[in-house]
């Protein structure tokens, strides 16, 4: 798949797989094309090449990709700041029958109790971590089989990042939801993921098991800036 803005491709002929039920992570420096990759898959950006989901071509518009089972949590949360927590969740259920939405609201308010306590509060008044949890819960309201997460740790305090990642691991384990996560926080992401891919200047330069990346000092220093 290739994708970019206007005539210039930012991502060049990359190829990667996410297996059913797995968490995959895409690593890379700023400007490597990580966000572009996710936005192209979800249909926010135009793309060329092949993207398949369950053996079928992935639709090319976000309204449609969510209907085949893909949700995205965009960078910078992507919550609807003027709407309440409850309304955000209900918008997340746009593709689902009305009567199922209420039960799922309860489910995610139970999973993230802080959302349950603030359901009548405007999303814009929540803290960064709470907004991230809301964005994740909203994406899950569509009952996706694959969730794309764009830098879920961005701008959050380390302790909050831990909490968000623990929640993701929990969701993946209980519901079997597949995830493709773009991250700068390589250590944390590699611990969570099963497979990993590294982007450099818009090209895919390495793919493999996440554990290997964690152990391999050469890979770490070459692609992830070492430590």
């Amino acid at each position, binding site marked *: 798949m290739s994708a970019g803005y206007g005539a210039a491709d930012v991502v060049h002929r990359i190829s990667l797989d996410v297996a059913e039920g797995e968490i995959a992570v895409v690593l890379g420096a700023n400007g490597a094309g990580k966000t572009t990759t996710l936005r192209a898959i*979800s249909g*926010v950006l135009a793309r060329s090449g092949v993207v398949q989901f369950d053996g079928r071509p992935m639709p090319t*518009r976000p309204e449609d990709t*969510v209907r085949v089972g893909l949700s995205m949590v*965009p960078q910078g949360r992507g919550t609807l700041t003027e709407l309440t927590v409850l*309304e955000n969740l209900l*918008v997340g259920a746009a593709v689902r029958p*009305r009567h199922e939405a209420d039960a799922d609201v309860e489910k995610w308010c139970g999973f993230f109790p802080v959302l349950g306590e603030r359901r009548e509060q405007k999303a*814009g008044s929540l803290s*960064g971590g709470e907004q991230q949890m809301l964005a994740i819960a909203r994406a899950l309201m569509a009952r996706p089989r694959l969730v794309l997460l764009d830098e879920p740790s961005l701008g959050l305090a380390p302790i909050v990042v831990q909490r968000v990642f623990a929640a993701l691991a929990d969701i993946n384990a209980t519901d079997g939801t597949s995830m493709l996560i773009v991250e700068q926080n390589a250590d944390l992401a590699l611990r969570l993921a099963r497979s990993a891919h590294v982007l450099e200047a818009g090209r895919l330069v390495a793919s493999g098991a996440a554990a290997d990346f964690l152990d391999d000092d050469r890979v770490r220093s070459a692609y992830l800036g070492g430590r």
Partner: protein
Amino acid sequence: MDVLVERLVAGSTEGAVYALIALSLVVVFRGTGTINFAQGEMALFTTFVAWSVIARDLPVWVALLVATASGFVLGALVERFLVRPVRKRNDMAVLIVLLGLFTVFNSLDGLIWGGETKVLASLLPNGPDDYVALGPARIYGDTAAVWIGTVLVLIALTVLFRCTRTGLHMRAVANDGEAAALAGVRVGRVLSLSWGLAGAIGSAAGVLVTPLAPAQLSLLTMLAIFLSAAAAALLGGLDSLVGAVVAGLSIGVLEALVIGYVPGVGSNLSETTVLVIIVLVLLVRPQGLFGTKKLERV
């Protein structure tokens, strides 16, 4: 005292007219973030359509329905085929397109219906004796129709935005179109619907208002009304339904009071005086009286 009551009634009627048009501007603004400069002229066009319906000896309420329906279709078509393609490239260009539409519709009116002033029948009985006395003031049918229309539209829109899924999706798109699309909201459909709804409200307003307008049904009917309505939408905060109504009524009453009580300035500069007051208010509250102040924590 009699003058005061009479001025208040006249002012709030005029204000209700501004409020109705301002409501349609707010509905579009919430969806697309643009002020539809052609709203008044689109409403005038469908009001001429209503006149043609009445000229075929059909009742006024049928004309109102026809005008409202054609306003809906017109609004949705303008969004789909003019605003949407242009907006993808440049938000500023949308304003130019809408200003262009403003002149197109006005010229079209002249071409089809001619330049001479027409009289549009009122929806409610409007004869010399068809009034309710409110103290020293008399409420005639045309006045009552405008008042009732404004209240009904405000209620309907509030229910739509607060209590329905479609309304929720409209608010989601207004807040962040991309996030709404990612959640599966069909943004294009929502925008067409918003513009259609605004067109319908504007058209209904046109039919209700024209019997009251000083210019009756002519090519100039909507110009002054639209300017004050746009000012009302701005003063109310552009994205607030209640704000549009409160601001519309305030502007109407203020104009009426200036006309009634300020000799010299009143008759000629009532609109200017009010606009100056609005500018002063916006200096203190840039987001308008009821507009949402963008709040965000990072």
